[in-house]
């Protein structure tokens, strides 16, 4: 637990420092975007959690600001994914994430972003209806192209690693197997440039 907090705090400090130390620029120059995405979500095939859950649908929204720079932007987002199964088992996942999005230096009409970030993943498991918030880590790739001055259309793929093995098994459980979560989202994305 202590390790997790240290990692998260370090990442928070890193992001905050980058924001605070960013070159003072007038607010009109700061590029900002909001966007939404929608698409299939799935437990990563081959991982333990994929034995219990099936692919279903998810969606989310995000806010991105060009801090500390236009090449390294800060992104905040939230999404909702619901995973079903062929039994009564199901999982609702709501990750709240903060990430740094790096614009890959390709001289193309299409923009590519690589992202890394941390999450608080609010999870609710069915049929027990138990919930908890777990630390998670995000790695993502995004491709988008401008559709006019204000709108970008793109495709994003997110990988979430949800860390649970640091928790203790329930006290009275015998042979309780602890697992982590590996999830993959693929979404069609539309974002709007708030200023240009």
């Amino acid at each position, binding site marked *: *637990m202590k390790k*997790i*907090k240290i990692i*998260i*705090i370090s990442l*928070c400090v890193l*992001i*905050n420092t980058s*924001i*605070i130390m960013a070159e003072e620029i007038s*607010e009109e120059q*700061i590029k*900002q975007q909001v966007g939404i995405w929608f698409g299939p979500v799935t437990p990563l095939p081959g991982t*333990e*959690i994929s*034995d*219990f*859950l099936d692919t279903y649908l998810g969606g989310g929204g995000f*806010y991105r*600001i060009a*801090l500390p720079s236009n090449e390294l932007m*800060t992104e*905040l987002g939230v999404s909702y994914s619901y995973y079903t*199964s*062929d*039994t*009564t*088992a199901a*999982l609702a996942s709501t990750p*709240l994430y*903060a990430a740094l999005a790096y614009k890959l230096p390709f001289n193309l009409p299409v923009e590519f972003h690589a992202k890394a970030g*941390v*999450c*608080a993943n609010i*999870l*609710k*498991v*069915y*049929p*027990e*209806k*138990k*919930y*908890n*918030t*777990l*630390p998670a880590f995000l790695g993502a790739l995004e491709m988008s192209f401008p559709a006019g001055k204000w709108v970008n259309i793109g495709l994003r793929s997110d990988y979430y690693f*949800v860390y*649970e093995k640091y*928790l203790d*098994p*329930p006290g*009275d*459980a*015998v042979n*309780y*197997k*602890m*697992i982590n*979560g590996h999830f993959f989202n693929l979404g069609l994305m539309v974002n709007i440039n708030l200023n240009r």
Partner: protein
Amino acid sequence: MNKNNFSKSIIISFLIIILINCTGKPILSELANSRINVILKGTYESNNPYSWNTDSYVDDAYSSATITGLTNVIPGNAIPLVDQKYYIDIAEIRISKQNEITDTTILEDYWHYFARERQVLCSETAALYEKQLDSCDTNNGVEKINEFFNEGFSYPAVDLESGKYQHLAIYVRKMITYPSKSYNSDGSFYDDIVAAFDNKRINGYDISSRYQWAAADDTAEDTPRLFPLQRTDLSLEIPETDKNYVLEIRVFLKNLMMKHLFEYTEIDTGEIKYLSFLGPSDHKANHQFNDATNKGKLGGNILIAARAYVPDETGSIRIINDTGADGSVMFYYAVMPSGETFDSSAEIPYAATNGGNNIINNLPEGDYDIYKTCDKSRNADDITSSTDGFPETASLSCATVSVQAGVESQVDLGTCDCQ
């Protein structure tokens, strides 16, 4: 606050949220760990079942005047245990908090699909033409059928939402028994019956269609009795607990097997034939071997019971000073939650043990009425001198006992005879 500072404060607030609440109980791991243990048993008893009878029962059809008047006698001997074989294919088990499916019911909302793994049980894995029953082999079906007819086998399942469930259904794809033979209209042997199981051919008869409809059911729209094999009147309380719990489902098959006889007309030739096969006795309604309407209807003779308990929170009842078998070949000690009615001729009890064992265990805390049930007659056949394996004769409630967790409660039955 200008827009820039506002953005910064949103980001910092957001990151603070991330640090909140990273403790507590596992969530994802709940998916990988089931607290439920579904135990499926093929016995009347919930603990310490009788061993198998050495012979099957024989239907009174074999002593019918019409049959005995044939040129050749159709053998009416009992089938010894060593010659009996069973093959059972179960698609899944479902459960519901409701108890009625109507035309407007959305099945996905009605059912809790908690045990969807097909289970294939067989007495042996050898099929005809030197083939093997592969699914039965890979599912340890031989081991499972032995467990099924004794202390039960663990049916793969995921956890259930806590609460009261009323409807439980076992979807039996096939139930095949061996031996089964057919005879000509003069009583001479015609052929061994062959059935398909696990995509192979085996010697035996698929009795599932026979047990689908009950005698006197008027139309095919009446409730099927085997697909699914179900009860809609349960008060099954799934506990809200972090402890492991058991869902025990009992299907009364063991020591209920009877050799039956039906007359039928072969479709191709129009000839009269006789079909002899092994199946649960016709304890519920007598079937006449040549009754044009009801000869093939044995539905309702396979009964189920289900209950849930947390093993750590159960007690037991020890029965002392009982008068014993009370003239019956087989008798049982049974319990029902106090106040619940028990029709011994139409249902199997909440929990039971064989009459040679005097402890009923795994009982959740509460008050229980104790019964003794005996197989003293063949009620459906109106024969009092013979038995059919079903203990329809019961004592009235002999006593009421309070059970506490971890405690063995004793009850002195004194005079408690099957009436």
